[in-house]
C-alpha cells in the first residue's frame, strides 16, 4: 500500500484508526476520505484488516489458555515455596547463607572477616549471639563494612539479601 497522493499522511491514518484524533479532526478526516477515492479505498482496506486482526487475536487468545487444574497446580506450588521461604531460619544457617553469597566476589578471607566484624559490632555481653532481634543491626553493620572494603554494590547486595532472610528469635 503506497501513501496517498493527496497528502493524507501516515500520522493522519494512525490518529483516525487508533482513535487518538479529537472530534473536529475526525470530522475533517472523514470529509476528506469521502471525497478522495484513493483514501476511501485505503480506509476500507485498513478497517477490514483491523477487524481481521481483532478477530484472529481473539481466536488466539481463546486457544492459548491454561486449564483451571494447571493454574491451581502452579498456584499451590508457588504458595508452598513462598511459605517455605518465609519460615524463620536459625541464625547459624542465615550466617552460612550470607557467607556463601559473599565469598565468590569478596574472597573467603574478606567475607569471613567482614561477617565476623559485623557480628562483634551487633552483639553485646548481654546478648552475645545473633538472633532475630539483632539480625537487622547485623545486616546494617555488614553492609557498612563491605561498603568500605568491597564497594557500594557489594554493600547493597548484602543489605538486600540480609533483609530478605527471616531469622528465628
Amino acid at each position, binding site marked *: *500500500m503506497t501513501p496517498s497522493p493527496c497528502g493524507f499522511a*501516515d*500520522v493522519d*491514518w*494512525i490518529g483516525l*484508526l*487508533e482513535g*487518538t484524533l479529537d472530534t473536529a479532526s475526525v470530522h475533517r478526516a472523514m470529509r476528506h476520505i469521502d471525497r478522495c477515492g484513493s483514501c476511501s479505498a485505503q480506509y476500507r*482496506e*485498513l478497517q477490514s*484488516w*483491523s477487524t*481481521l*486482526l*481483532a478477530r*484472529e*487475536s481473539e*481466536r*488466539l*487468545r481463546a*486457544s*492459548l*489458555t*491454561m486449564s483451571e487444574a*494447571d*493454574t491451581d497446580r*502452579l*498456584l499451590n*506450588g*508457588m*504458595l508452598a*515455596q*513462598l511459605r517455605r521461604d518465609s519460615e524463620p531460619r536459625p541464625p547459624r544457617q542465615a550466617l552460612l547463607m550470607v557467607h556463601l553469597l559473599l565469598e565468590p566476589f569478596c574472597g573467603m578471607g574478606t567475607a569471613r572477616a567482614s561477617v565476623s566484624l559485623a557480628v562483634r559490632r551487633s552483639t553485646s555481653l548481654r546478648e552475645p549471639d545473633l538472633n532475630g532481634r539483632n539480625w537487622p543491626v547485623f545486616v546494617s553493620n555488614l553492609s557498612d563494612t563491605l561498603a568500605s572494603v568491597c564497594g557500594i554494590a557489594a554493600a547493597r547486595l548484602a543489605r538486600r539479601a540480609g533483609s530478605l532472610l527471616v531469622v528465628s528469635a
Partner: protein
Amino acid sequence: MQLLSELQEQNVIDGFLSSPDEESFRALFRVITPRVFRYLRLHGCDHGLAEDLTQEVMMAVYTQNHALRDRALFRPWLFRIVRNVWLQHLRHESRQVRLTDVQTLADILTGGAGGNSIGNGPDFSRWLAALPHGDRELIVLRYIEGLEHHEIASMLNRPIGTVQWKIFQLKRKLAAHFRQADQPQDKSS
C-alpha cells in the same frame, strides 16, 4: 463485557498492590497468569517451559511488587518482567545452542506440535510466527494482550509515536501479506 473484565482485572491488581498478601495474590494469580502464559507461548515456549517461566514471573511479581512506583503502570511493569525472564531463558538456551525457531512457533500456534490448534486461522498464525521478534511482540502486546500504546511505549522504553507508527506499518504488512496470499486463489477460481 471487555470493559467489565478490564475493571475487574484492575480491581484485583489494586487489591494486591494495596495489601500484597496470600489472599490477594491468589486473586491476582488467576487473573494475570493466563496473560503471562499466553505471551510466552506466543514467543515460542512449549507448554511445560511456558509454565515454568510463568511461575518464575509470578514469583518476581510477588517479591518485587514494592518496586512498582506507579500503579497505573502495572501491566507494562508485568510484561517487562515477562520479557526479561524470557530473554534470560533465551540467553541460557543460546549458550546450549537450542534456539527456538520460527517453525516451532508456527507449530505451536497452528497445533502442529504440542500446542493448541487455533482453528481456522493458521495463515494469521504463520504470519505472526514469521515476524521478527520485536514486531511479533508489538502485535501480541497490542492486539492479543490489549495493551494501550502508552503502556507498550512504557514497557519497551520507546516514544509513543514510534510505537504507534510501527504498529500501523505492521498492519500494512499484514494487509500486503494477505493480499499476496489471496492472489493465487483468485487465479484458480
